[in-house]
């Protein structure tokens, strides 16, 4: 996983609430066995018309937002399905940070597994950042994970919260399976204890 430290980039304004995972990447594009290549179909129905031509009014079809690495949105971003294809599509397009008032739980969680930083900030603050984002290239935002601040173009620093363990994993680009495997003795002990307490718990074997 790519580490996330500091990012200075163009932010794309997407002033929509309840941006669901079907909107981020429709199910018909989930028939892949790879993690990459989904960026082309990110926000497919918003980005392209029925003939597959770009809709010029959609933000990611405009300069400089074609190169945006930050996305600013409204409430409940990422609601719906658990598909990790949603953060994969964002990442494949180049988005490394999403800022919104709040996120759906599974999407939020999935971001961290892919080096994407989701930041929750109050709606009024998101609205200010949305205004900055509308200025495009003239108003790049900086996200500094170590210091936990978003820096606006005028230098104002907006602090944000993040779980310390997630911050550590993200800053260092660590895969959490390796972390968990350090607890393998405890997992073994748990399984033995469970078997003693619930000997009736069956295993699955398909004949």
């Amino acid at each position: 996983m790519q580490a996330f430290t500091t990012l200075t980039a163009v932010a794309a304004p997407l002033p929509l609430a309840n941006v669901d995972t079907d909107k981020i990447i429709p199910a018909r594009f989930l028939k892949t066995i790879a993690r990459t290549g989904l960026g082309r179909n990110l926000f497919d129905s918003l980005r392209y018309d029925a003939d597959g031509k770009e809709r010029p009014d959609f933000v990611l079809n405009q300069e400089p937002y074609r190169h945006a690495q930050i996305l600013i949105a409204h409430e409940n971003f990422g609601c719906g399905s658990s598909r990790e294809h949603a953060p994969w599509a964002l990442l494949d397009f180049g988005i490394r940070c999403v800022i919104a008032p709040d996120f759906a739980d599974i999407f939020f969680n999935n971001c961290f597994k892919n080096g994407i930083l989701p930041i929750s900030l109050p709606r009024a603050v998101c609205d200010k950042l949305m205004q900055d984002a509308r200025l495009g290239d003239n108003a790049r935002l900086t996200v500094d994970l170590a210091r936990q601040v978003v820096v606006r173009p005028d230098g104002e620093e907006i602090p944000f919260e993040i779980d310390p363990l997630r911050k550590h994993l993200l800053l260092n680009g660590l895969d959490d399976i390796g972390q968990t495997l350090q607890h393998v003795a405890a997992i073994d002990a748990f399984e033995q204890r469970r078997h003693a307490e619930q000997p009736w718990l069956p295993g699955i074997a398909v004949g």
Partner: protein
Amino acid sequence: MSGTKPRTLFDKIWDSHVVERLPDGTCVLYIDRHLVHEVTSPQAFEGLRLAGRKVRRPDETIAVVDHNVPTSDRRERIENPESRLQIETLERNVAEFGVPYFPLLDMRQGIVHVIGPEQGISLPGMTIVCGDSHTSTHGAMGALAFGIGTSEVEHVLATQTLLQKPARNMLVRVDGRLAPGVTAKDLVLAIIGKIGTAGGTGHVIEYAGEAIEALDMAGRLTVCNMSIEAGARAGLIAPDQTTFDYVRGRPFAPQGEEFARAVEYWRTLPSDPGAHYDRVVTLNAADIAPMVTWGTTPEAVLPITGTVPDPEQVEDEAARAQTRRMLDYMALTPGQKLTDVPVDVVFIGSCTNSRIEDIREAAKIARGRHVAAGVRALVVPGSGLVKQQAEQEGLDRILIEAGFEWREPGCSMCLGMNPDKLTPGQRCASTSNRNFEGRQGPGGRTHLLSPAMAAAAAVTGHLADVREFA
């Protein structure tokens, strides 16, 4: 152990699965059952392979194909090459890693959230995960069940655990009894209408109260299934005699003496009197009418007797804009009666409503009637065994004679990953769980409702109040 402090059902399941608590409060949480399907697993198995890791507990894992399988005759080759590759990839992975698997032509194949309870794989008190948000369904068994992404699928395959922090507890209590013609689907749509699509974010919802206790297991599975549509991490219903009677004798459940011992344990799971909930919401079952969604988020829902809302009456500017956008997408007019909305397609199926009880409800309405001219109506059973049961009861004949298509099990038109999808502009009365833009096919328009309401829409050609079909 947490001593004498009263605990919720969620607290009890959580506490009994903590392998280790890390200093920051994150827990290594043990997972009893891992359900795997073809769409969210290929990258996870690939990750294991690249790291030289094994599946830690194949005997706590079960794989099945459901999301992109065709619902036509499956003895033939699957036409779509990408779908075929995903299915073949799963078959290669389960063989390589020794994971139990129900193949496409096995009678036990079906939608992962239908077959778990049906086979007795999902049991009370367990932790259950799957790379699918509707894993919340299994909470109806009294299990803590939630959806995960592919990275976490890989994590569970490798370690049989997840790194998690406990959710907050939310109680949704539904007092009284549902009126005739009002089902579990209407109940959960009413709950989502009340608390909103983000109303449960960060919480596990426990459903309780007389109306919930009175539901059969199919109804409880429907309610818990849609917990995720309220943003909740999971939904839960306390296991009781209804649960135990359902589990008894299922192929993968404990049998005989073992079953009795299991029930003894399961009876300790319900929330203690005085247990703390961070949030409590109450509803009166008697106030709930048959419901139907009119917008592109499940919270945009109204009683079937209602009219399409007028955006100009919405106070908040952002909400007004969203309402306008939804009506535009759905091609509805403010003030239009919902019963005047015509439909092109009817879909009865999905992990929400494809169990035998759902098909019986649909057949009851379809019997002696016919699908309206110009309407295409599909019934997609949730599993091979549901299909077989329906055929033994003659429900397939009733539905086919009424002009419905009777198809093979799978997720089908719930998400349009297989050939069953809407074409742009088509309007569908659907028993599935999501009415998002393009969910059932690009440009498709979805109205969520119960199986009986869907059948009523099929035979009238428009959204209709099932209570008029008595």
